[in-house]
């Protein structure tokens, strides 16, 4: 049996023919395993979904309670499907995110989903799942990406708040994971004033708080009653798309920030009109990505969405077997 008999790429995503399941399929399938709740990995309309309880909750919040036919919670114990064993372990990416290890007749494959090795106050820490094959994401797989300490990036925001005490500070952050992480980091920096959040973040922030993650006092930033005077010198968190809407006019001379790993590249920040780029990423940077492969030392490294070419080149340079999967349908913009 070859590795590709246990798992291989298809148009709908990674497929395990033995168990007849897909992992993070990009189109509706009868049976799906989902690593985490980001929209490109977790889609609605499958026949059955197996995922962590938090990921299932998040999917229900985003797509409605009927997002799938049947559902099953992946707990600490492995799940058997047609003789294939599936284990879930934390990926350190967002709340509920998991890596999935398949084992069958002594052959093991770990699918990383998206992962990050920096400590993150909003989710469980990444754990190694050694396997014969490591399927890794490659969102930031270029040697130019070395993510700085996130607290230092929050420090930039704090400095700007002191320099411009009359301006509202808008921080763009994607709704699942990044927004809550940014809020938790701001709290860790000692900011205890209420933080204003865009309506589209409301449900996911409330869910994080239910799960015991302390985000402090949050106020709706999209309420009609919010005034310019009230938000001057305050922090407003919103999805980046909101910055192009008339809603922005409600704020006093806003400073536009954006928390994303892409902010390391000047032109990406400038093209979005960002004044306060904050390099905060929920993915592994180049040093952590290459370190992880070295530590796990798989027989083969399969590379999915992102900059596959560079990681392939690194595998070649370090005498490792690498394979680009060229899966389509995953986005790296929403980071």
């Amino acid at each position, binding site marked *: 049996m070859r590795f590709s008999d246990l798992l291989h790429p298809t148009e709908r995503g990674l497929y395990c023919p033995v168990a007849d399941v897909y992992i993070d399929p990009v189109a509706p399938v009868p049976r799906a395993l989902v690593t985490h709740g980001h929209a490109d990995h977790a889609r609605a309309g499958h026949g059955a979904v197996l995922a962590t309880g938090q990921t299932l909750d998040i999917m229900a919040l985003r797509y409605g309670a009927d997002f799938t036919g049947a559902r099953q919670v992946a707990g600490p114990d492995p799940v058997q499907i047609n003789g294939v064993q599936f284990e879930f372990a934390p990926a350190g990416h967002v709340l509920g995110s998991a890596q999935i290890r398949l084992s069958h007749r002594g052959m093991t494959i770990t699918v990383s989903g998206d992962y990050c090795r920096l400590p993150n106050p909003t989710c469980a820490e990444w754990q190694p799942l050694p396997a014969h094959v490591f399927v890794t994401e490659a969102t930031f797989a*270029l*040697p*130019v*990406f*070395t993510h700085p300490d996130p607290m230092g990036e929050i420090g930039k925001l704090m400095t700007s708040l002191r320099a411009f005490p009359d301006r509202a500070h808008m921080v763009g952050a994607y709704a699942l994971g990044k927004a809550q992480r940014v809020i938790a980091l701001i709290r860790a920096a000692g900011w205890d004033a209420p933080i204003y959040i865009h309506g589209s973040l409301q449900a996911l922030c409330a869910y994080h708080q239910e799960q015991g993650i302390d985000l402090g006092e949050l106020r709706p930033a999209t309420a009609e009653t919010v005034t310019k005077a009230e938000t001057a010198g305050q922090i407003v968190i919103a999805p980046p798309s909101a910055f*192009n809407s008339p809603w922005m006019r409600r704020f006093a001379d806003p400073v536009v920030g954006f928390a994303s790993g892409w902010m*390391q*590249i*000047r*032109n*990406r*920040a*400038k*093209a*979005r*009109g*960002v*004044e*306060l*780029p904050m390099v905060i990423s929920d993915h592994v940077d180049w040093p952590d990505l290459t370190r992880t492969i070295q530590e796990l030392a798989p027989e083969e490294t399969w590379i999915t969405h992102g*900059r596959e*070419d*560079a990681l392939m*080149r*690194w595998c070649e*340079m370090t005498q490792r077997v690498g394979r680009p999967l060229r899966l389509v349908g995953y986005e790296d913009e929403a980071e």
Partner: protein
Amino acid sequence: MKAFADLLERLAFTPARNGKIALLRDFIATRPDPERGYALAALTGELELRHVTPSLLRSLAADRVDETLFALSYDFVGDLAETMALIWPEGPGGNTPDLPDLVEELMSTGRAALPGVIAARLDQMPASERYAYLKLATGGMRVGVSARLARIAVAQYGDIPVEEIEELWHGLTPPYAELFAWTEGGEKPVSAALAPFRPVMLATPIDLDELRDLRPGDFSVEWKWDGIRVQAVVDQGVRRLYTRTGEDISAAFPDVIDAMQFDATLDGELLVRRGDQVAPFSDLQKRLTRKTTPKALLASHPAGLRIYDILIENGQDLREMDFKNRRNRLEDAAQHWPDRIDLSPILQVKDWDHLADLRADPPDAVIEGVMIKRRDSPYLAGRIRGHWYKWKRDPMLVDAVLMTAQRGHGKRSGFYSDFGFGVWDGDRLVPVGKAYFGFTDEELVELDRFVRQNTTDRFGPVRAVAPKLVLEVAFEGLNRSNRHKSGVAMRFPRISRIRRDKPVEEADRIETLRALLPPEV
């Protein structure tokens, strides 16, 4: 070095012009000489450092980083210095010298020793300083600080009119210690240079509706020629040719310099002319891109001046005089000019509708509109409303089909922002041009997504795109071209609209473009 690196960072992320000026002002106020002067010169591209070429940087990188990984990174980042700064392995660290020491080191180090010196400095610096240092070494800061913006900051800091600073600027060299001394209450420096550049008077755009509020009798009208606006200066035998931003282009136009047999500061248009025939802009462009000009090119592309105005004559400043009187002086002076230099004629215009007719059908293809000048206006520095107007010919428009795309470098790097488009020739599309701008940032994101979703083929960095999207392309003129299969070359093409509404079959045909070509000569 840290202060300069911070300034560069903040300038890059401060979009507003006034915000940039405030940052520069603060820097001037808080940093000592010669650091502030070197910083300003570095930002405006007036610092002459040597030999730090892109290829030198690439070879430095190749010593530390795998070449393929570097190439992939550069393709993504789009800026060589930034790629280098980010990818450079963290060195042992140490104390980074101040900006003036680094500038002087780069100026004084010989070619052979330079790579070693730069590598050692990069090893000392954190990433943000590496970036600033490499930008310093290579020039081209791209943070939106023009020489003019820098002069405004100096003017504001010293509470001095910016025009006075502009007049002096050309006689000064970095680090401008005497200039800063003046802004802090010292003596006004004396301009050391002969034949200095004087700030140019600029026109504001106008249209027929707005013109109707003006009295035609108050104005003089001239053709607006499609060359390059220049200032020709002769001062006690020293002759210089400047662009309207004060860039000295004398070296590229020895034929014009030779013909400048007068003692005056003249405002005019630089054109390639063969006898009475004015050549299209593309001919002038051939001359412009040269540092030195071969004899054959001087003969095949002779340049000359068409003069609009006179600022100074025999040492007498005429700028306070009104246009009518300056024009009289100009017409007298023109008696003595050689063939290469002539006077821009005044058009006899009955009323604005008459002008509209003239503008719609100019006697020469190299005319891009008309200039409308108030007869009692003095010669004023800058673009001040109410004195000079330009009424440009409408741009030409064509509906073309998006065919290829390439990642941009510089400002738009990482996005597909260089677009190739074509029109129908029979049932095939033939490429007719490329455009890099005209679209908004939102449209850029949309075009980038379209390209990534509709790529059919890749040729190196170029992606072929399924012919599905119609773009309205605006351009200023059309030239015959042997280099392009279509036989036409557009001047100044830009994407004016994305025509999602238009089916590709209804894009324009090559015959439409050919009909717009100037007659064959």
